[in-house]
């Protein structure tokens, strides 16, 4: 019988935090820091630590960088990973479905933990995007380091671009 997985087992927050820490040289985005200097956490109505998370673009590796030790990410079987992902996705959707704030959507702890699950979660995110269209683009960008959507694409265009990307990569049919 499948067991319920305690979401606290999902050690993704450190991983995602490491990737999006603005002071980290691994995540420096040219020109980004300077453009943010006039905006503060209070502008977004969030705490300073949350503001740090949102003050950089989704992680896109440029040049050389060092992956965090794999020990930081728990190894799951595919069934466990699927259960963890869907529990987190349900929690995220249930707790954000009435918000209009993009900030709250992508900084929700469950969403951040999904990002922290790493590349193995890409087929699950894409499957979710296929069946239940929602705001998975930020997570896909953060995990894959890519953005196949054309600049200025609307929601449907962005979704189609990511699904096509997933098919080309063999993540989904």
């Amino acid at each position, binding site marked *: 019988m499948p067991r319920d997985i305690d979401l606290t087992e999902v050690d993704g927050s450190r991983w995602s935090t490491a990737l999006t820490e603005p002071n980290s040289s691994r995540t420096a985005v040219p020109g980004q820091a300077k*453009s*943010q200097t006039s*905006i503060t956490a209070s*502008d*977004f*109505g969030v705490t300073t630590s949350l503001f740090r998370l*949102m*003050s950089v*673009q*989704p992680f896109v590796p440029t040049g050389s960088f060092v992956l965090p030790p794999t020990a930081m990410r728990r190894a799951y079987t595919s069934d466990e990973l699927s259960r963890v992902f869907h529990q987190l996705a*349900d929690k995220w*959707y*249930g707790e*954000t*479905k*009435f*918000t*209009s*704030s*993009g*900030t709250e959507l*992508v900084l929700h702890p469950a969403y951040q933990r999904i990002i922290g699950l790493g590349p193995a979660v890409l087929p699950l995110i894409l499957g979710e995007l*296929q*069946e*239940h*269209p*929602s*705001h998975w*683009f*930020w997570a896909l*960008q953060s995990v894959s380091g890519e*953005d196949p*959507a054309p*600049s200025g*694409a*609307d*929601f*449907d265009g*962005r979704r189609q671009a990511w699904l096509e990307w997933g098919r080309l990569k063999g993540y989904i049919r």
Partner: protein
Amino acid sequence: MARMGTVKGLHQVMLSDEMKTAFPGLNDSNTDPASDATAAYNCIAWAAEDTTRWWWPIPAPPFYWPETAPKAVTVPAFLAVFADLGYNPCDSAGLEAGYEKVALYVRAGVPTHAARQLSTGRWTSKIGQAEDIDHASLDCLEGDNYGGVFIILRRVAVPLLGPS
């Protein structure tokens, strides 16, 4: 949890209990669901009559924000967006002939929601990733989730073109 907004869609004719819990001012007599649930657009987009993008001032894709407005979750940034659409502050939420109105909700100084007035005097709101609703008054949505109405904006209505 059953998700709303599946590809096939499920048009809801009754207000969900979950929405009534989240917004205690809503009930079946003052609110009508008016669309399927969708994540394609949010309340700001809906107020601006765009049903293709999620408007939010995050300084990076995938969200949309007009280039002319500051990318900060502040009241001035949201007012700048609606000013570009021709809206200016006004005193009354009542129906005025020749004008279209938008209401901006704020919680703890942070913009949370926008509603647009219909030609009947009722209001229409997109509720997050859930459905659009038509509601009788602005205070239906006031509370812990969206805070309260901060300002009413209006613009001269664009006349509908009839057959020539």
